[in-house]
């Protein structure tokens, strides 16, 4: 009984039982054995500012799938756990889900640190982890399906576009001090060189630090003509505010960001970001009926008429569907079945068509560049005509004709040559 009640509550995300009703009816009607999946995000601690929304999006997808008949006629039962913004807790909860609850598929996490902390659990016990966040690449696990962007999907059109369209030649690279921004900076530098641009500085601020006085002053005095920001998390808000407070404007010296999303823009107030750019595969402003409906459904799901959607959130949503299709294709939900089934799986997500790369289990996404507007939405100023291939090792010379990460795993020989 406790299990039923529990999953009921979980499927409703924040405990709204009305939303869980269809699932409940379905379950009693079909009386089929539910398929259990894990949902592992930080519901407490500093990272919950973002991860709560990812958790909600995952729950929404599960609720929708259940409402439309489940997976192979079986309802999904989500076991929700709290990573508490702490890799130790992540590791413990991952073991709980995979070993304790014998769950094969888990959707979860935002930071690389937490993914790295749960990885050994999934690899040693052969379970599948669906990871919805853009990350630095350099990973080739047969137990992870990566549905967020890798550096080439955010940068390969971004840097050339800034140089050619905006005519900017001298960059100030700034980021939070950890692996993702440093790796992004590395790829940026390669692309800048290829496009005949230079960078005047490559500076970092402690993750979570929001004191930007000195940094923005440096930017001001650096003589750069564009700022490339890989700043992550709550620091973003303080950064843009300080930027304007020190009298810098995006018209003359735009911030071109890789991580600033609708969440941060809403928090800082659009007036601080108007005119700046972000490169992401998904924006809330994507003008398709599918996306508009998605935003509406999300808002009513979380009961917040002003809630925003963003890239990692959209990936959290569509990756559940990719998993569903994989299970249905394989006819069962074991790790092997999911892994093989998900290869090449396609889905029309709110942001457009996505495909899981059959080789490296990363996802084909469409790079887009948006300029932030006064209403807090990004106006898409540039987009790839089609989804592009994910290259997790692009910084080491990986190209679409020479993949480092294939279904046989990482080809170290190629990496060595780089």
């Amino acid at each position, binding site marked *: 009984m406790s299990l039923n009640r529990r999953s009921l509550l979980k499927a409703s995300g924040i405990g709204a039982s009305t939303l869980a009703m269809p699932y409940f009816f379905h379950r009693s009607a079909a009386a089929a054995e539910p398929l259990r999946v894990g949902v592992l995000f930080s519901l407490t601690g500093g990272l919950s500012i973002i991860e709560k929304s990812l958790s909600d999006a995952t729950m929404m997808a599960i609720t929708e799938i259940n409402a439309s008949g489940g997976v192979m006629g079986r309802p999904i039962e989500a076991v929700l756990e709290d990573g508490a913004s702490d890799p130790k807790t992540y590791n413990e909860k991952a073991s709980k889900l995979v070993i304790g609850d014998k769950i094969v598929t888990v959707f979860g996490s935002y930071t690389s640190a937490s993914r790295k902390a749960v990885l050994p659990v999934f690899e040693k016990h052969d379970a599948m982890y669906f990871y919805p966040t853009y990350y630095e690449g350099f990973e080739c696990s047969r137990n992870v399906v990566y549905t967020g962007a890798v550096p080439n999907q955010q940068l390969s059109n971004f840097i050339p576009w800034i140089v050619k369209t905006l005519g900017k030649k001298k960059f100030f690279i700034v980021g939070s001090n950890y692996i993702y921004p440093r790796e992004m900076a590395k790829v940026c530098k390669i692309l800048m060189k290829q496009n005949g641009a230079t960078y005047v500085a490559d500076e970092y*601020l402690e993750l979570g630090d929001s004191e930007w*006085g000195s940094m923005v002053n440096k930017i001001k005095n650096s003589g750069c003509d564009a700022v490339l920001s890989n700043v992550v998390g709550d620091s*973003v808000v303080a950064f843009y505010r300080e930027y304007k407070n020190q009298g810098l404007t995006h018209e003359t010296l735009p911030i071109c960001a890789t991580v600033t999303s609708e969440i941060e823009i809403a928090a800082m107030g659009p007036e601080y970001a108007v005119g700046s750019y972000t490169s992401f595969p998904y924006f809330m402003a994507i003008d398709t009926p599918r996306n508009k409906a998605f935003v509406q459904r999300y808002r009513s799901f979380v009961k917040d008429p002003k809630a925003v959607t963003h890239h990692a959130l959209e990936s959290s949503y569509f990756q559940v569907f990719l998993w569903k299709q994989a299970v249905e294709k394989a006819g069962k939900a074991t790790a092997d079945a999911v892994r093989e089934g998900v290869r090449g799986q396609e889905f029309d997500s709110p942001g457009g068509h996505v495909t899981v790369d059959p080789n490296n289990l990363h996802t084909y996404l469409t790079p887009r560049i948006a300029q932030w507007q006064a209403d807090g939405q990004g106006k898409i100023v540039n987009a790839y005509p089609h989804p592009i291939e994910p290259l997790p090792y692009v910084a080491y010379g990986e190209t679409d004709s020479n993949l480092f990460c294939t279904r046989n795993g990482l080809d170290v020989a190629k990496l060595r040559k780089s």
Partner: protein
Amino acid sequence: MFDVIFIGLSLGSILLLVALGLAITYGAMGVINMAHGEMVMVGAYTTVMGGLWLHIGFLASLPLAFVITGLLGWAIERIVVRRLYGRLLDTLLATWGVAILLQQAVRLEFGLSFFGIHIRGLGPGLQNVKVPAWMTGVVSIGGDQVNIYRLFIILVTAALTFVTWLLMFRSDIGIQVRAITRNPRMAAACGIDVQRINALTFAYGSGLAGVAGVMMSGFKTVFPDMGSAMVVDGFMVVVVGGVGSLLGSVLSAGLLGQVNGGVAAVTNDILARAVVFGLVILIIIIKPTGLFSFKGR
């Protein structure tokens, strides 16, 4: 050069803004209030909620936040801190629990999220605070561009420091507070209502944190965990300055701010923070009682 000094001054004033309340609750009352950062957070949320629900502006939030966090501080003193006077490290542990509780209260929207009720302005996410347009941007003073918001923080901090100094050293209540600091039993024997004065002092210290929260909300990020890092910095400022010395706190905030700003300008922010931590360790080792000190209870 001017810009670096100004940023250092601004960093110092931000440190002091948070430390001021701690200097009172820790310095004068012997309570290590780990929930002080959460008071800052509550102050910041007061701005958010005030704007959303009462449609009051940023500046009008200042007195409101002072009152709300003051009342909250008063309640915490009554319920928790009162039983712990003289047990310094226990106050640290108990208020740590209070801090977790306050964070969760905001994140879970006072528990209403269990019932599927969402209150705008609360919850786990980031919040937006509207700042009056005239406070953003720069003003030119003598050929140098000065960040108006930071200038405003410096002024508010200076004003609060002055008011606090007046209260502590030029008012009857201040005399009573200082008497309690030095010897609570003797003070009680002299007819001072120790319980009342303690509650008021704690409330005032918390109120200062609330004001700090409003100031922070205008240029930093508002979310439930925003305060936890601040309390550590503030605590260091107070200890380095010398427990119980207002002047010490002012000077140590100024010193740490300038060092942070200066090192950051020459090298980078990360090294600057490391240097500040190192400096804190060094100062305590060389002068264990802080830059200025007297023996309290």
